């Protein structure tokens, strides 16, 4: 043997003084424990959010009032939550459908814009008879959202292009296109502001007769029911689960993997387009440059917190709708920027994502030598 002293000089090992964490991978976890860990993450996230609100100057006594009492237990407050949550439900479903097949659709805002553009084309050019125009707007919005996600879907399936980046880049392209329209051909001739002209009465979603809650809420609920059936009860839903969890096995088992991904992703785009329609036809009543802001991340966040379950999307979207509504009033009363809503959402998602640590691993402390 070659002499070892020369080959391995100065071999000293300094033992750890304090010890270290050792992770044991859990193969399964009880429902109760699982829920408790996620609740813990959620709790930490909310606590940090409250601290930020306090630091931003919201009075401690008012936080509960603003974010809970006046939001969920007040007629006007609750109605604005329901209005806010309609497009949120749709973008949440959109993200959930795409994530289920492991396609990270970060381009929800772009598809949202194209949905709004599709609806706007019908509205401002008065296509079709007024009686069916609102329906036509919805169809065009769905097609618009769908078409906008087709290129990234094909790039991913055909060439393996990372969809996170491709869908996101297309957000900026869609945004620039909207700017081009609202500063150009579609600019409102009445006030010359950068938005399209307002939609006529026949081009707006009718109210349901309770405060200003509109038909968009019903559209969202129907979408929840359909997507729930599709994902949880239909054959296609099983395909989606397998394609998302193990595409190799799915293919070997005879599932049309590429088609499953394409259809699920297309549905995701269509749902985002529908969200753009609801926003345009029921809330803004026109195409604006800011209408999609924040909906992309909110959709991702809702789907993530709901674990891609359509029924849970409904619940989470309702709560996020509350955050949006409360954010509006905090904005007015404390002159805090809309960015606050974004920040709070990010903190909550991060804490819940981090709490997965406890769900996935059992943590041991290995003692060091402590000399």
């Amino acid at each position, binding site marked *: 043997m070659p002499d070892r002293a020369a080959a391995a000089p100065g071999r000293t090992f300094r033992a750890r003084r304090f010890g270290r964490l050792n*992770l044991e991978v859990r193969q399964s976890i009880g429902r109760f424990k699982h829920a408790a860990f996620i609740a813990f993450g959620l709790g930490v996230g909310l606590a940090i959010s409250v601290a930020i609100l306090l630091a931003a100057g919201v009075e401690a006594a008012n936080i509960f009032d603003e974010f809970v009492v006046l939001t969920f237990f007040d007629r006007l407050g609750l109605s604005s939550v329901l209005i806010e949550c309609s497009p949120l439900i749709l973008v949440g479903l959109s993200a959930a459908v795409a994530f289920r097949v492991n396609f990270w659709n970060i381009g929800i805002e772009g598809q949202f814009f194209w949905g709004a553009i599709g609806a706007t084309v019908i509205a401002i050019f008065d296509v079709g008879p007024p009686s069916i125009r609102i329906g036509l707007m919805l169809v065009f919005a769905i097609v618009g959202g769908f078409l906008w996600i087709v290129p990234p879907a094909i790039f991913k399936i055909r060439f*393996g292009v990372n969809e996170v980046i491709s869908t996101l880049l297309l957000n900026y392209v869609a945004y*620039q296109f909207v700017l*081009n329209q609202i500063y150009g051909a579609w600019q409102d001739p009445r006030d010359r502001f950068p938005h399209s002209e307002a939609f006529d009465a026949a081009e707006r979603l009718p109210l349901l007769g309770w405060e200003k809650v509109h038909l968009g809420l019903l559209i969202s609920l129907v979408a929840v029911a359909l997507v729930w059936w599709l994902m949880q009860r239909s054959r296609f839903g099983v395909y989606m689960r397998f394609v998302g969890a193990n595409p190799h096995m799915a293919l070997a088992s005879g599932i049309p993997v590429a088609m499953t991904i394409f259809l699920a992703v297309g549905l995701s785009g269509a749902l985002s387009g529908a969200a753009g329609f609801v926003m345009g036809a029921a809330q803004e009543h026109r195409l604006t440059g800011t209408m999609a802001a924040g909906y992309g991340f909110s959709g991702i966040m809702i789907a993530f917190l709901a674990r891609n379950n359509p029924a849970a999307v409904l619940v989470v979207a309702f709560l996020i709708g509350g955050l949006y509504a409360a954010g509006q009033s905090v904005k007015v009363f404390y002159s805090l920027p809309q960015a*606050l*809503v*974004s920040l709070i959402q990010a903190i909550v998602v*991060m804490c819940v994502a981090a709490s*997965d*640590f406890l769900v996935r691993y059992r943590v041991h402390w290995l003692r060091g030598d402590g000399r």
Partner: protein
Amino acid sequence: MIEFLANWLAFTPVFAVPLLLATLGLIVNERAGVINLGAEGMMLCGALAGVACYIEFGESTAVGMTAAAFAGLLIAFLFAFVVVVLRADQVVTGITIVFFGAGLTGLIGLRWNDTAIAGFRKLDLGFLSEIPFFGKVVFAQDAMVYLTIPIAFGVWYFLFRTRAGLNLRAVGENPQAADAAGIAVDAYRFCAVAAGGVLCGMAGGYLALAAAKIWVNEMTHGRGWIAIALVIFARWMPGRAVLGALLFGGIEALIPRIFAAGWPVPQYFLQMTPFLATLAVLVWVGVAGKRRSAAPGALGLPYVREDRW
């Protein structure tokens, strides 16, 4: 025409440097196996910190850049804690970091919003800067442009000519092997993310102090994402990252030149070009490079020593 060309090329580095700094940072990240989609958020924090400290502490670009680097570092610590220590999903966490950065800067940046600053000044290298054409393009840039060249070289040297660089790449390719060889996988990943954060923060700071000379909300405007795409284009090599950054810096620099020249090109379509070009590059890489990917083997996968799967 020559003047147009000279102006264009002279402006290219200002746009290329932030892309290059961010891309280098992300290469260090990804070579260690951590995919950092939060670059945009780190750049935003760097940009705000850079502008704020520049304004508050004596209008010094050095102070501004240091603050930007530090801000990037802080966000990177948060990201590293969540994805390296707690092993959370890197994609979700990365996207969240973007909105965390946007939200945070939107909230605390109000004070400095829309305040124009002098920022980086072009250096005057005497007679060198006077040389026609070349003087303007090569010898009249700001200090950071010249500093970026050794940084790029340094990243390459570190990754491919040092033991620590080899260890870092081993951690990104095959953490099981690295661990068995006695390399501290988590420590390398944590430090790689931190270093990437510093570079992304500097990229944001430079963007605000040299290119925009102002702080406005969400001013990075997708450059973090372009940098992420450039990493793929560069096949995780610092040398090719320089090329990519110059290419995309060139495209970005062209846009204001075309406006200035007063050509009748629709403004908003012109603004789309960097994003469409990035997409085109991604598709091209996908079509051409399908057979052998240069991506680190363990990119995006958390490592757990006792995982038996």
